[in-house]
């Protein structure tokens, strides 16, 4: 059994330095790995990334992240990524990582993802260049996620994104903005890549639990949804006492 902790949308900056670290001190007693589902900074300033590195770097469990839209606001996402990587945090974008954990080998494939909407209510690569570019960006990131999932040589596979793969976990958000909150391309990637779990953030007013059409559990771990420092999901069977 593998215990997966996850949280997103922590939106850290200097005002919140030290606010999470004490709550993460005993994370190894609750989880084997921590996933960060994007929007780690307030607006993608490298100084904010330093706060993220200080809060989540050097924990007793591996930390794997994707960036979110806020982390791109200053157009310095490469610097943000490097600061997190230097702190030992794996940052995924169309890529994956396999971890050997006490409960087995777990692979994580990640992308920021993007919007575009959901079946019957989505954009298409048609018309103005801006519209085509919008939907193409979403499709290409989802394709990267799908490829990365399929390349994982692991007993358990997790799809980690910032944008949502499904509508279920957006319940509570205004339906009019669903196309800006996620894309079903991500769900298709999770299904075709045989993910055991899909984790995302971004939808602060959404709900925690949903699933893809293919049956993959989807969890919205945006901190305003969880109202706790992280949620823990247990994959697999085995040591029942490890996940009560």
């Amino acid at each position, binding site marked *: 059994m593998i215990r997966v902790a996850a949280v997103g949308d922590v939106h850290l900056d200097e005002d*919140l330095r030290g606010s999470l670290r004490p709550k993460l001190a005993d994370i190894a007693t609750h989880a084997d790995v921590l996933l960060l589902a994007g929007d780690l900074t307030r607006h993608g300033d490298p100084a904010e990334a330093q706060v993220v590195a200080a809060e989540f770097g050097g924990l007793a469990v591996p930390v794997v992240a994707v960036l979110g839209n806020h982390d791109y*606001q200053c157009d310095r996402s490469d610097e943000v990524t490097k600061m997190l990587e230097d702190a030992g945090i794996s940052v995924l974008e169309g890529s994956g990582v396999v971890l050997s954990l006490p409960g087995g080998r777990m692979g994580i494939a990640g992308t920021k993802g993007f919007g575009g909407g959901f079946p019957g209510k989505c954009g298409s690569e048609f018309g103005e260049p801006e519209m085509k570019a919008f939907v193409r960006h979403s499709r290409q990131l989802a394709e990267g996620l799908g490829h990365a999932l399929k390349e994982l040589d692991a007993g358990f596979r997790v799809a980690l994104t910032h944008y949502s793969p499904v509508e279920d976990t957006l319940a509570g958000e205004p339906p009019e903005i669903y196309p800006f909150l996620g894309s079903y391309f991500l769900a298709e990637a999770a299904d075709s890549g045989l993910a055991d779990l899909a984790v995302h953030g971004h939808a602060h007013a959404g709900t925690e639990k949903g699933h893809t059409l293919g049956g993959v559990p989807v969890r919205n771990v945006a901190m305003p949804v969880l109202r*706790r420092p992280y949620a823990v999901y247990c994959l697999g069977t085995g040591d029942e006492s490890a996940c009560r």
Partner: protein
Amino acid sequence: MTRDTSDYVAGRIERALASDPRTHELGIRADVRDGVVILRGEVACEQRRLLIAEVVRDAAPELDVRNEVSVPELQPPGEEEKLT
């Protein structure tokens, strides 16, 4: 005939909250009526709550600001969920 265009003002305020470097908040709802803007939503700390009101006063100085934005407390990690 005078039409109520207060939603345009609310939209302008919400855009200011999203784009202003002091806030970059996308989850705050502004409702404008009778010369008052009511702000609702959640942020992570008191400093951010105060900055929201500051940005709104700059964006719409003609309005009184009622700041109902709250700062929720985080709960302990809680129970794990078994998926398989």
